[in-house]
């Protein structure tokens, strides 16, 4: 796993590049447009730092490329990378079929485990059984929520989801740290 500081450096480099490109594409921007440009460049830079190795980064690039305007910026920042990343993204729907099947298998096996557990604890108070099923429902609900938060989450099985989440959180943290540093530095700079 990359060190956090190298991740930040990679992000900063690509982010500055993105901002520069955006600035050259559009000279005069409204406040809102500028905010969107900053955010988009930041997200693409963050995804690009992973170089297509993670599902979330590919999904993020794919989602950004859906918008015609944003697609141009994406292609500019990623350059030749974007072609390669696009190819990888198109593989995703195919993989999801396999994953859905293995998910069904998983779910069926969980069902049999649950039934076995239930028969074992038939003697224990009904509250315990209820508590277990509530906990399982909570996990399921929260897993779905997590899937909606991580880009490309809907294509992932439980294991991949956790791995991707870990990487996504680390990347988000690096992104936030760098952006905050720039904001603080700009503020200080403007005061002088």
């Amino acid at each position, binding site marked *: 796993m990359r060190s956090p500081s190298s991740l930040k450096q990679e992000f*900063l480099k690509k982010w500055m590049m993105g901002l520069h490109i955006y600035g050259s594409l559009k000279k005069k921007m409204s406040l809102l447009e500028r905010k969107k440009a900053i955010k988009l460049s930041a997200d693409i830079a963050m995804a690009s730092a992973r170089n297509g190795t993670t599902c979330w980064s590919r999904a993020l690039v794919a989602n950004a490329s859906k918008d015609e305007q944003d697609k141009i910026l994406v292609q500019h920042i990623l350059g030749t990378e974007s072609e390669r990343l696009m190819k990888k993204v198109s593989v995703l729907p195919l993989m999801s079929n396999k994953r859905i099947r293995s998910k069904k298998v998983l779910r069926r096996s969980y069902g049999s485990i649950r039934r076995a557990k239930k028969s074992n604890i038939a003697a224990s108070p009904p509250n315990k059984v209820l508590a277990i099923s509530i906990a399982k429902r909570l996990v399921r609900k929260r897993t779905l929520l997590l899937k909606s938060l991580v880009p490309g989450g809907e294509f992932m099985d439980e294991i991949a989801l956790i791995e991707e989440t870990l990487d996504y959180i680390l990347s988000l943290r690096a992104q936030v740290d760098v952006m905050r540093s720039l904001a603080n530095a700009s503020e200080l700079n403007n005061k002088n």
Partner: protein
Amino acid sequence: MSSRRSRQSGVSRISDDQIIELVSKLRQHLPEIRERRSDKVSASKVLQETCSYIKNLHKEVDDLSERLSQLLSTIDADSAEAAIIRSLIM
């Protein structure tokens, strides 16, 4: 048919252990849970903390983008500021 059944048990055996390991890794990165000494944090709690942490990070990015859009008069960030930050990050 039998191959499917063996794959079934194979998948569930691997995923249980792996999930526990990954969940513990995830816990280490969540700021709030790290402070608690108890080892018995439920999966649903970890998921909940993870979701709210990600939502917070998203919101921070949005707020920082807002702040930066006001601070940076041109979208081309000053090379001086970029240089400062680069040195801070090193």
